[in-house]
């Protein structure tokens, strides 16, 4: 028997193989690029200046801390809102709602996930912000609080999807066992189901946090964009600036090669690294549970 014509498939096999490696390639060049454009900032500006508390690039103040604090405030606020609503909804869908309702609710969550962030930001400016200003008697409706509300809304679908999957994956036998021992539905949920799905639920929360940190447009539109370092709680109701909004707002106006240009890349590196850490930690948990990785990206 002669040699098989598998050599004819060599080309297509090579193409497919290269596609497979492409993901690694892209992460690599993104990382390389960010580093190469961001590190010069450290040479141009000394570290004390970078860790100062004023971000005012026009006059040479490149203190990153207010930006980091802005991102943290808004993310914390968003998480405080998103976690109860998100886990609650996930519990409802997975444990309490009847079958037919689930077919109805899951697409809804998907739709909410698909809403462009700029649309939510738009509604934030036009509707939410004046509403809050009047209701709470604030000098401005564009604040960290408004941002948190909207970011929370954006993070909820992510949390719901992943948490719902995790709860669904808890074997029926666990619940049956608890009920057979006389537990009520709620007792079962609190003492058995939720702890069993604990790692999946934690993953969901972490992914929600990651989503909030990385969100750009919504925060840029409603948080008022004032890079002020937080020193007391009232800042929650006044304008702040996040790292993401800073990059988005100022990138268009920098001169290539200037200190400002490089510092923005540096901020990008900080964002990249934070998101990396959160996502890898979350995924390490997910791998051990062999979840459907599709949900990671909702």
């Amino acid at each position, binding site marked *: *028997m002669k040699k098989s014509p598998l050599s004819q498939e060599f080309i297509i096999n090579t193409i497919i193989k290269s596609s497979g490696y492409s993901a690694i390639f892209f992460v690599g060049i993104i990382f390389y690029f960010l580093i190469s454009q961001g590190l010069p900032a450290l040479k141009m500006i000394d570290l004390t200046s970078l860790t100062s508390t004023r971000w005012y690039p026009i006059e040479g103040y490149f203190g990153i801390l207010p930006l980091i604090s802005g991102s943290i405030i808004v993310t914390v606020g968003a998480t405080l809102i998103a976690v109860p609503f998100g886990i609650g909804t996930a519990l409802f869908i997975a444990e309490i709602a009847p079958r037919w309702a689930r077919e109805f609710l899951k697409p809804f969550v998907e739709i909410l996930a698909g809403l462009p962030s700029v649309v939510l930001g738009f509604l934030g400016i036009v509707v939410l912000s004046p509403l809050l200003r009047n209701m709470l008697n604030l000098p401005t409706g564009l604040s960290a609080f408004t941002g948190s509300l909207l970011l929370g809304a954006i993070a909820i679908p992510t949390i719901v999807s992943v948490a719902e999957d995790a709860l669904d994956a808890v074997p029926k036998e666990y619940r049956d066992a608890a009920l057979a021992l006389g537990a009520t539905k709620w007792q079962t949920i609190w003492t058995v189901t939720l702890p069993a799905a604990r790692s999946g639920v934690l993953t969901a929360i972490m992914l929600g946090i990651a989503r909030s940190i990385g969100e750009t447009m919504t925060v840029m539109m409603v948080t008022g964009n004032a890079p002020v370092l937080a020193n007391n709680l009232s800042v929650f109701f006044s304008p702040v600036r996040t790292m993401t909004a800073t990059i988005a707002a100022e990138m268009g106006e920098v001169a290539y090669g200037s200190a400002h240009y490089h510092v923005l890349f540096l901020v990008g590196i900080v964002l990249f690294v934070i998101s990396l850490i959160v996502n890898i930690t979350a995924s390490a948990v997910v791998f051990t549970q062999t979840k459907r990785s599709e949900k990671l990206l909702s």
Partner: protein
Amino acid sequence: MDNNKILVDNVSLQYSDGTESLRNVSMPIIANCINVIFGPSGGGKSSLLRLFNRLNDLADVIHIEGKVLLDGEDILDPSCNVIELRRKVGMVFARPVVLPMSIRENITYGLELAGEKRSSRLEESVERSLIQAALWDEVEDRLNDPAITLSGGQQQRLCLARVLANEPEVILLDEPTSGLDPISTLKVEDSLQHLKKEYTIVLVPHSIQQAGRIADQCAFFLQGKLIEHAPGYVIFTNPQNERTRDYIEGRYG
């Protein structure tokens, strides 16, 4: 006498999960008859079958030695053209797996893989192989229906026709009637009796009774080793080996 279609020469085979599947097996497969390989489960029967069309290339084999000669050529040799081999040696599986296409497309699939494009040849092969598999009468006016609409027995005969369309020389069948009702089982066994005149059949039966009904040549396997090899009627009336006898009489299984 060289009507050995296949000659297994001292073959040993081991999978990565540690199960040693075949141990020093040597046996002939005689041309133009029904060769039956039977024994309790785990005995290595399926592994041996999959050796003949190199289908265990897909599995995690970590150790293999020996030769398997098809018409004198060693098919375990790396230079062997595996694609050609699989056309020559076709296989019918335990569960009928019809491809998600129409009946006609299922049958022409193998020929199209080989590059056959002439519709006359394809049409002719569809009719021929369906007749050989005793299925033509039942499906001739619905060849374009999805194959999944056939009954279990019909699907299995379709799988047989699918293999026949490739014009093989050897047909391997791994418990082909295990999911079928008795009538479909008899139809398949009947077809095999006709087919053996043109092809060499190697069959793993799903019951001893089936082996008793149709075996021309018989090989008894236990835990990866060939225990006894003899013509069918000999093994079932007068088995030489005590373990063979015990198994046939149902003392274990």
